């Protein structure tokens, strides 16, 4: 009996190792973005657009601008950067622009950006683009804006000062920023404790759990 136990334990270990060896998991960032979010309001207190201002790290900026200085003057004009800006927003569409807006319990749909452009300053590229809400809506009691890349190819950070700006918001509206949880030992332990059967958490919750989502809450007092 002891033999039996011993050999099945060993086989089990070998199986676990085999699985570990072949396991595939999430990516890791090749793009580091310093971001700022802006919400635009109309005269009736409704949100009309979300504007993202994303500054890329120097390495990705250098890669992105490779070969774009077509007139070799050492500067990148708006015209030289325009095709790349277009490629950027077209590609971001598949990823829902990493921007998720919820009013109450309703997930808000965006139209394709109507304004977008790139600028280079001090070796860093900044992408500006504006996502119009399909239907403008007032923030009400609880609005949540989340910005994150669930695949973790893009690592976002927000400035401590003014991570979000509300443009022409009605009086009594305020935004609060909740940075992602640091991936500390406590979170790792919690993740490890989640039973395998519970790994089908809703996507947003799951990613919040690993600490990738930047969450803004907007509340307007009447």
């Amino acid at each position, binding site marked *: 009996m002891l033999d039996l136990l011993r050999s099945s334990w060993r086989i089990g270990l070998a199986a676990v190792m085999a699985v570990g060896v072949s396991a595939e998991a999430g*990516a890791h960032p090749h793009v580091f973005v310093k971001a700022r979010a802006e919400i635009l309001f109309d005269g009736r207190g409704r949100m009309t657009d979300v504007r993202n201002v994303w500054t890329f790290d120097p390495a990705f900026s250098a890669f992105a601008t490779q070969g774009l200085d077509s007139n070799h003057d050492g500067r990148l004009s708006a015209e030289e950067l325009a095709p790349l800006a277009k490629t950027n927003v077209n590609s971001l569409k598949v990823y829902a622009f990493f921007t998720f807006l919820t009013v109450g319990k309703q997930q808000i749909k965006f139209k394709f950006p109507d304004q977008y452009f790139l600028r280079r300053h001090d070796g860093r590229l900044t992408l500006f683009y504006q996502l119009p809400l399909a239907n403008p809506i007032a923030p009400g009691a609880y609005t949540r804006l989340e910005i994150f890349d669930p695949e*973790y190819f893009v690592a976002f950070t927000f400035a401590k000062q003014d991570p979000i700006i509300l443009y022409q918001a009605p009086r009594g509206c305020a935004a609060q920023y909740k940075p992602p949880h640091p991936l500390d030992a406590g979170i790792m332990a919690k993740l490890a404790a989640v039973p395998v059967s519970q790994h089908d958490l809703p996507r947003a919750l799951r990613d919040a759990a690993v600490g990738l989502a930047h969450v803004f809450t907007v509340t307007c007092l009447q």
Partner: protein
Amino acid sequence: MTQNRRARLRIIIAAAAATALILLTQVGPAWAVRSPFGIATPETTGPAFTGPLGGFFAWVALYQAEFYKALTQALGGIKHSGHAFALLAGVSFLYGIFHAVGPGHGKTVITSYLLVSRQTVKRGIVITFAAALMQGLMAIGVVLIAAAILNVTAVQMTHATDWFEIISYVLVTAVGAWLLWVKTIGRRLHRHAHAPAAHCDHDHAGHALVPDARLLSKPLTVSRAWAATLAVGIRPCSGAIIVLVFALSQKLLVAGIGSVLAMSLGTFITVSTLAILAVSAKDVALRFAGLDSVWAERIMHVVEIGGALLVLLLGLTLLGGALDGGLPT
């Protein structure tokens, strides 16, 4: 050991092998992903940080991110300090180690290939070294030709590497199909050709434990090893390309090349460790299971067919995913 106990043992081992196989195919899912900015396609990825090892991979990703950041900063710092070169090499090496633990179909293909074609640990190390070095050299080659000489844009460079990715998936599929052939139809054909019918049972047991080098002529096996190496090494990693183009823009191309070679060395350390573990785990499991050679051979054979299928399915899935949005133009 009594007859009864042996029978139970066999059932348990067969069940464990079957479970391992099912788990292997379950953990395997990977799909090609499009770049969120239209340039620098991310490595193929599985579900982000889920599964029993999710926490571990989140931790790995965190460190990769840190090392990658440190790497690009070290590269930027070289202009100001001589010590930065050693720092850059060290950080690149560590990044390579962590990066290889992360996403990528390379490990699955290499370890499966080594297990199924019954390579020795020594050859496993040679093959993983060749694959890691090739991946680094591909990145260097692409950036030298595309950026330094032709001065193409990031979009065009990304298209080029997307093509390499498709070639890589075709090769993965081909390696999987070849392994499956050798383990099923090819094996039978071979046995019919060489084993006298009267000694079939005896011959089968003893013979099949001999590595496949005997099954196929040696040069052919070497060429298949190259196919597996190419399948894994032909697609340069986005991180390496970004670092090289950044280095080029800073007029530090030599430092960039050094960094990428150090990365390859790190990748080699990780993948060869996994390959050695996989090959030794199989040997140890077989030895300690205490099975007679006929049973051991049967179980191994089932596991190998599973491994071959895994590589084939992985190749097809990756290829399907990559072609889903149309060919890169």
